[in-house]
């Protein structure tokens, strides 16, 4: 198998999805702003979508289902981004900060 035929290989896409997922986890753990965490969450969703699309292309009997699932993941991600960012803006108006360390009143 040559390096130029990697795109015909399921493992390539699965490893890429795993790398995207890992970068998303790293971002969520280390970011210190809410918006940075949201950006990392988008990376996580992209990794999951790449996995779905890879199995859809190489293994699934019906290659339509995975594409529809990826479209629904995109819609859910857009809704999540809208709600999350509006919460971030509301928190910023209230606390004048988007640092998670400052918003300790949200603790139970």
């Amino acid at each position, binding site marked *: *198998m040559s390096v130029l035929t990697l795109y015909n290989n399921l493992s390539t896409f699965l490893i890429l999805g795993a790398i995207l997922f890992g*970068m998303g986890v790293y971002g969520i753990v280390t970011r210190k702003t809410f*918006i940075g965490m949201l950006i990392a969450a*988008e990376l996580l969703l992209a990794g999951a979508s790449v996995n779905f699309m890879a199995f859809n292309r190489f293994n699934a009997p019906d290659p339509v289902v995975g594409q529809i699932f990826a479209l629904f993941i*995109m819609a859910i991600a857009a809704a999540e981004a809208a709600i999350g960012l509006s919460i971030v803006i509301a928190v910023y108006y209230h606390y004048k900060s988007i640092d998670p360390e400052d918003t300790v009143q949200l603790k139970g």
Partner: protein
Amino acid sequence: MISSTPLTAGPALFSVDGLVGIIFLVMIAVTVIGGYIACNSQRLVRAVAGLIVCFVGVAGLYYFLNSPFVAMMQVLIYVGAVAVTISFAIMLAAPADQEKMSQSSILAGPLGFCTAALLAGGFSVLAIKTQWPVMDKINDGSVKKIGIQLLTNYSMVFELISIVLLIAILGALVIARVRREN
């Protein structure tokens, strides 16, 4: 006597297949570099720019997975809508001194990296070691087939996702509204 055929018989570098492979490698590089910038840069604006680059690369990966429709939707929704929304949120809500590092533990970075590396490496090993069963295709996954399936088998989910998006927009408006002091 040395065999004349090489062990790894791939396409020539400047054939059509070879150029397609090079474009795929470029897409991988764009995705990984964009993701690195998105999760590792200090300024949020640069992180959003890295996210856009990463999503363009992911759209290219979708194109290589025989799904040009999903690739187009990736560019339209993520690069077009989500990135713009995040940019507006940064303009509205990010204070000017947000790049100052708050006093978090010195261990957060290395421990986070270890967690992420363990997860990614574990998933990769799992993906390589497992024998995934391959089944015969029952259709070609074209855009026409997607449209037919969306309006027949998946029409209920299609309507539900519209309602979810509508409620999300209304909820975002209600939450982000500046409340009057009374």
